[in-house]
């Protein structure tokens, strides 16, 4: 839990010297609490106070990175229980597990399929984030070989799953450079796993088979040994127990600042589900409720798309709606005679209207105004979607050069803008479209004359 301005103020010199740029020490403290200032701006704060403030500003859930480069998975550093309190920051990683006991060509096939999977959503591209390889064979050489094969076929981050330190060591020898996660240290092997995590500088997952007491003991041990990039598996698997335990752990980390559980979680929905369908539902629960790295046993595009979409929903910043880039968008393959419609850059608004135009088979031009991510009526009432803005966008995007007509369809919700728009765009005819995106196909059918 971050300190409040008042709590920070107690550590400051209280001289109101203004050298930090703020009028008073209290004002500076408030800025610090809001992360709008840096403590180094104060030359007079004591070392002791600095230490205390740094300790207090340490994130309650550590940010842990698996993998390297632009595909790395970063999880943790969450600060709230509920997304409306601020936002959830680091989207959980979706990982698919293969086993070294499976035929090599099957493993290769899965890895290639998973690695090549890409899907677009709200103008962004997503995929599966990593591959886990389990030492199911129990044989160290088989594991090392399988890990090497997988690594040669994917650039995704890896999770190495073995409880035998010798098997883990053999696999790390091959792939440690790519910073795979080591899964898992347990009470039986923790000393050796800590050694491996240190030697290869890889994040270490810790699994408890006996609840949070054992888990806290193990993480405390690892942290004291200097291994701080930890990922936690409290050993629960089903719907009810993961919801309860993950909630308790998030509360302990955030509200109690209980450091031994202040790390991201790893979960295995396939182990808590009776079927692949149920696995997908449980993975969805882990996305909404505190999962960090979610290791699944089944890959299917339909499930992956749904989970990626859910993750995007849950991890959207409530204060920053997903926005489209303003511009002139083409629906299907519009001609110069195709309809021209205007809307806002709130992604949901855009996708609703674009989807309806497409579904109704209307090749058309969709002009998207910068309304700072607000929907039609909200933007209108906030003065961000008015005649002036629309006229400027029509001109700025050179809409007149793309179409051979001068007809502009505006959303029915802002029918009141028609008069002003006709003044702002004197040679254009303004058509008032339907209030609901759903009705746009029917509207154009009735009113659009080419």
């Amino acid at each position, binding site marked *: 839990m971050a300190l409040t301005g008042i709590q920070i103020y107690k550590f400051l010199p209280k001289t109101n010297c203004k050298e930090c740029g703020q009028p008073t020490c209290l004002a500076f403290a408030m800025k610090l609490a809001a992360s709008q200032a840096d403590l180094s701006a104060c030359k007079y704060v004591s070392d002791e106070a600095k230490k205390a403030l740094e300790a207090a500003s340490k994130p309650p859930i550590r940010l842990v990175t698996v993998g390297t480069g632009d595909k790395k998975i970063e999880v943790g550093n969450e600060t709230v229980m509920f997304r409306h309190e601020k936002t959830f920051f680091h989207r959980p990683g979706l990982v698919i597990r293969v086993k070294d006991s499976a035929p090599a060509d099957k493993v290769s096939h899965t890895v290639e399929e998973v690695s090549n999977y890409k899907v677009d959503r709200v103008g962004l591209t997503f995929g599966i984030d990593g591959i886990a390889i389990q030492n199911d064979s129990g044989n160290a050489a088989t594991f090392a070989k399988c890990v090497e094969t997988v690594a040669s076929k994917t650039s995704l981050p890896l999770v190495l799953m073995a409880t035998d330190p010798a098997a883990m060591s053999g696999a790390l020898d091959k792939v440690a450079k790519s910073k795979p996660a080591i899964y898992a240290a347990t009470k039986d092997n923790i000393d050796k796993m800590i050694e491996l995590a240190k030697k290869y500088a890889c994040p270490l997952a810790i699994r408890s088979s006996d609840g949070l007491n054992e888990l806290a003991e193990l993480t405390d041990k690892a942290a004291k040994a200097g291994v701080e990039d930890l990922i936690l598996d409290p050993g629960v698997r089903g719907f009810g127990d993961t919801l309860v335990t993950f909630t*308790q752990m998030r509360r302990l980390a955030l509200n109690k600042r209980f450091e031994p559980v202040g790390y991201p979680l790893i979960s295995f929905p396939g182990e808590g589900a009776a079927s692949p369908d149920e696995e997908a539902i449980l993975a969805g*629960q882990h996305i909404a409720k505190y999962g960090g790295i979610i290791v699944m046993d089944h890959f299917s595009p339909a499930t992956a798309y749904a989970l990626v979409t859910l993750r995007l929903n849950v991890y959207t910043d409530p204060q920053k709606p997903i926005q489209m880039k303003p511009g002139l968008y083409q629906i299907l393959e519009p001609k110069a005679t195709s309809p021209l419609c205007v809307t806002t850059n709130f992604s949901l608004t855009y996708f609703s209207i674009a989807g309806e135009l497409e579904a109704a088979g209307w090749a058309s031009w969709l002009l998207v105004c910068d309304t700072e991510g607000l929907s039609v009526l909200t933007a209108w009432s906030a003065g961000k979607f008015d005649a002036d803005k629309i006229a400027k966008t029509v001109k700025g995007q050179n809409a007149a050069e793309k179409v051979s007509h001068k007809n502009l369809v505006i959303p029915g919700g802002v029918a009141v803008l028609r008069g002003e728009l006709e003044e702002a765009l004197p040679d254009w005819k303004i058509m008032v479209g339907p209030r609901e995106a759903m009705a746009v196909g029917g509207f154009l059918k009735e009113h659009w004359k080419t």
Partner: protein
Amino acid sequence: MPVEIPIEKWTGKIREVKLGGGKRKEIVLGGESTLPFLSFEGSFPHPPKVGVEIQDKEPTGWSQSLLHAWGDAVKDPATWAKKAAEYGAEVIALRLVSAHPEMGNTGAAEAKKTVDKVLAAVDLPLIVIGPGIAEKDNAVLIAVSETAKGQRIAIGNCEEKNYRTIAAVCISDGHVAIAKSPLDINLAKQLNILLTDIGVPADSILMDVDTGALGYGLEYALSIRERVRLAALGGDAMVNMPVISHSGAEAWRQKEAKASQGIPAAWGAVEERGLIWEELTALTVINAGSNLVTLLHPKSVERIKATIHKLMGKK
């Protein structure tokens, strides 16, 4: 290292609202004194219920997957309700689509007939939702309320601009009013105050705080439920009614749930996609505090019921 589990001390509790009763099966919604399924710190006596939404008119534009699942049952609401009961529905939610001026403009007499038929076909609790046009809602729902008197059904929707008539018949016939508000905790509360002010008992209100589908505003649906639930558990007695979510209808409206052509291969198989779209839409709001979800596909009903069962800590 002993870990002390943090317990939240909630002062509020969700109201219990009963549907059905008498010869009809009775269900109890709400009653919990903690967040969904966290029974380690409070009581969570009644698992969320799963209803099936049916309509009084053969649906148009529906996904093949849904049509295939229900077959000819979609042509007759009574047959449909019966089949839904066989598939495990705990509630039937009947939408009077045909009363909409553009969907047939049927009147009070037809609505009464349909409701009578459905009530006779199944012994499950019933929800009846009007076509969503104020005048028509009022006209058909009065008849519905009268004919279902004594069966304690839920009737909707009461909205800020049109609640008096529906609320009045709910009071006189002993039904539950569904209060619908648009994703806003203050408006939800305001509507509950209006309803209780004119005499609807607080334990005869279900809140529909609006929902969104996966990929289409589900995050708003999730957050409004969590906010409402936290406020209720914090002691606000004007938002502590059970929450209903029409997740199925929302999910299956989306292209992602039904399109099989002209879409990227990465979207995967349509049948599987439609189901998971509905299931994640439902699960997310259940975990955020919904006490009743209505769904469209029998397979989702089965899976979401199994999920709730497991969330209640049962094997």
